[in-house]
């Protein structure tokens, strides 16, 4: 029997945040990674998306 499992979007985002390999790095290592890898606006957008996912997983917004 085939079974396709699902999770809520918020649960998936929380898991992705917990598994964020880049932001797990020590701060100095992360800064070196940014200096090396952030070159254009697409890199910035991608990084901001990863960053915002982690931030949002830590905050329970009001309203």
């Amino acid at each position, binding site marked *: *029997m*085939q*079974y*396709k*499992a*699902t*999770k809520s979007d918020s*649960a*998936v985002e929380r*898991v*992705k945040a917990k*598994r964020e390999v880049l932001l797990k790095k020590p701060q100095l290592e992360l800064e070196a990674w940014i200096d090396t890898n952030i070159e254009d606006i697409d890199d910035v957008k991608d990084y901001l998306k990863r960053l915002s996912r982690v931030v949002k997983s830590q905050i329970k917004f009001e309203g």
Partner: protein
Amino acid sequence: MSSFFLTFDTETSRVISYQSSVDSEADLRGMIQAHNPTWDISPVEEDDALTAYMIQVDGVWQQRQKHELIASWSAESVAADGASEIVLSPLPIPCTVYLDNDVVVVEDGSLEFATEAVGFYRVMVNEPAYLLKEWTINAV
């Protein structure tokens, strides 16, 4: 002198509890069935109580010991791409599988699991004739 008894549901064959009692089997049965007419009891050795189950053979309830479920997963992680599958088999037929908050009845002895959502999935099989078994699947 107290004895141990299983209490089970004759409609589902599920063991509900076990307990020691100083009452006779007939008295205890009467008390239990006064409140739950579909329940019955069965004398059991204390050491066997946790792993006993009941099965009806030719109209007679028999007590047996659960055995290990031999089912296993083809892998413990799966790519969360919606197409990759891992398989849990061989399962008893039929078999109820609990996946997180979902309940699936598998009729063909094999569960093919796929997902698009990353995360851990808790899977459990708790069939009457088998020891409870749990797995955690990681979708990556």
